[in-house]
């Protein structure tokens, strides 16, 4: 059941452009791996190579130790949603799932089961071309689930969805990981990844920038000063400045203090009987941490014209 996706020195070149450049990473079971990077960073190309749709220029990627194309019944191993609109618009949702199920000899009861899972039972006989983006997305997820695969891949699954749909997909993805499946989800939005991913594989301009657990993206010591709110801000500012801190008054009347940690500030103000109403270490948001991580590569991508 526990199947890893392993990319080794995966590279895809289009002419001079390196869409994916020497990428090595592993997607582990039982967790959601967020595949994060700005648009054009090579996320979709990488996922297409995992599925054998595009051939790597060099390097390799395997699912459970085998190339995707060598899997005897791939839908029972990997479920993927790359493009929700990659459906014949004239075919009903049921028939779309039927022709996919037949290729891997999946029982037709699975069609009814996955339609129920994604909530499309009512519109199963409707032509997919008349589906909203949200419904198409659900149909794509239904197709991915047909073979009840231990590995799931979603490319930008929340793009274009309404808030309710986004919430639904997040819960679904978290649920898959909780069941022990291997889940890879791409996004260009750090905020989205912060809510769904356990682990981040960050790429920019086709290159690996970071591969770490979400908890480690912001280190415990990664503090950008301490916010202090006091009854007498001027007196506190004077005290902390003389004690070696750098104090910046904020527009809302609080003070941002660097150079002194929270414990030291608390001790100093207590000794001088200056009451504080707030004492909060300022950590960078995940968004900021992500911007920090990708800054160089974003500039590179913009100069380079990006990839597809």
């Amino acid at each position, binding site marked *: 059941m526990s199947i890893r996706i392993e990319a080794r020195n995966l590279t895809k070149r289009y002419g001079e452009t390196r869409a994916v450049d020497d990428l090595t990473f592993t997607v582990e079971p039982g967790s959601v791996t967020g595949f994060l990077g700005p648009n054009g960073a090579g996320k979709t190309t990488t996922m*297409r190579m995992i599925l054998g749709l595009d051939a790597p220029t060099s390097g390799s990627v395997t699912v459970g130790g085998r190339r995707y194309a060598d899997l005897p019944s791939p839908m029972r191993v990997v479920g993927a949603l790359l493009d929700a609109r990659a459906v014949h618009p004239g075919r009903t949702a049921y028939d779309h799932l039927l022709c*996919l199920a037949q290729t891997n000899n999946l029982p037709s009861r699975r069609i009814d089961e996955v339609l129920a899972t994604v909530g499309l039972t009512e519109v199963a006989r409707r032509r997919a071309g008349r589906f909203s983006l949200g419904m198409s997305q659900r149909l794509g997820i239904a197709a991915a689930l047909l073979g009840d695969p231990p590995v799931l891949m979603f490319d930008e699954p929340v793009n274009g969805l309404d808030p309710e749909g986004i919430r639904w997909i997040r819960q679904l993805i978290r649920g898959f990981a909780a069941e022990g499946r291997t889940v890879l989800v791409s996004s260009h939005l750090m905020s989205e990844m912060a809510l769904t991913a356990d682990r981040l594989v960050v790429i920019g301009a086709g290159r690996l920038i970071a591969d770490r657990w979400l908890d480690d993206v912001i280190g415990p010591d990664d503090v950008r000063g301490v916010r202090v709110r006091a009854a007498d801000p001027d007196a506190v500012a004077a005290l902390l400045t003389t004690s070696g801190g750098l104090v910046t008054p904020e527009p809302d009347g609080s003070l941002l203090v660097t150079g002194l940690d929270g414990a030291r500030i608390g001790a100093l103000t207590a000794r001088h009987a200056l009451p504080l109403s707030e004492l909060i270490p300022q950590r960078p948001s995940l968004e900021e941490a992500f911007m920090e991580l990708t800054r160089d590569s974003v500039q590179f991508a913009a100069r380079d014209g990006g990839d597809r």
Partner: protein
Amino acid sequence: MIGVLRSEWTKFRSVRSTPLTAALTVVLAGGLGMLISRGLGMAYLDATPAEQALFDPTQSSLSACFALAQLAVGALGVISVSSEYGTGMIRTSLTAVPRRGVVLAAKAGVVGLVALAAGSIAVLAGFLLGQPVLRSTGAPSASIGDPHVLRALAGGALWMAAVGLLGVALGILLRATAGAFAVLVAVTLVIPLLADMLPPWFGKWWPPSAGREIFQTVPNPEDMLPPWAGLGLMYAAVAAVFAVAFVVFRTRDA
């Protein structure tokens, strides 16, 4: 492989365009066949005795098959592939079945059988509806038991299947409906019609020109391959295009 064949059959029957195109094949063969039979029957009456001696009632009633109905069956082959590229479905299909040779074989199998079935009905419709029309104009007519008629009908159905298969291969190579269909029309219709302007050996060896001889029941005075040899050449040519399509399909990014 059985599963992939069943899947391709589901794909064929679950959209409107493909069954409609198959039906159009029969309608063109029958309906237009009657009109053409009428026209050729009238022309027979005004023809010289030498021309009358070469009159071929079977081929006349089947003219609509190798003029237009074959394009419908070819379009069937083209859109069975190009619609997958146009909608992006091809990526879903190739994710479900990454062995591309299997996908191509299953598609060719289903389209080939459907084209053969539609072609058989089309050829029969053209013959059975065309002969009474010829008779009504006063021109000679044929019946199924006459020499070479069964060969023309059976071979004609196989010809239609060949054009359908050519459509599949062109769809794979060109991916877009319009481009693939344009090439199909040029290869199977326009170039054979231009045969008079081309050197005689060209018409003898151009596979669709040679293959169309299968519809002939009165010997052609021009130097052509025998009917089955001509159809064999057509199949060999389709197989060659398929081989190229397979190599391209297997190596190209989807």
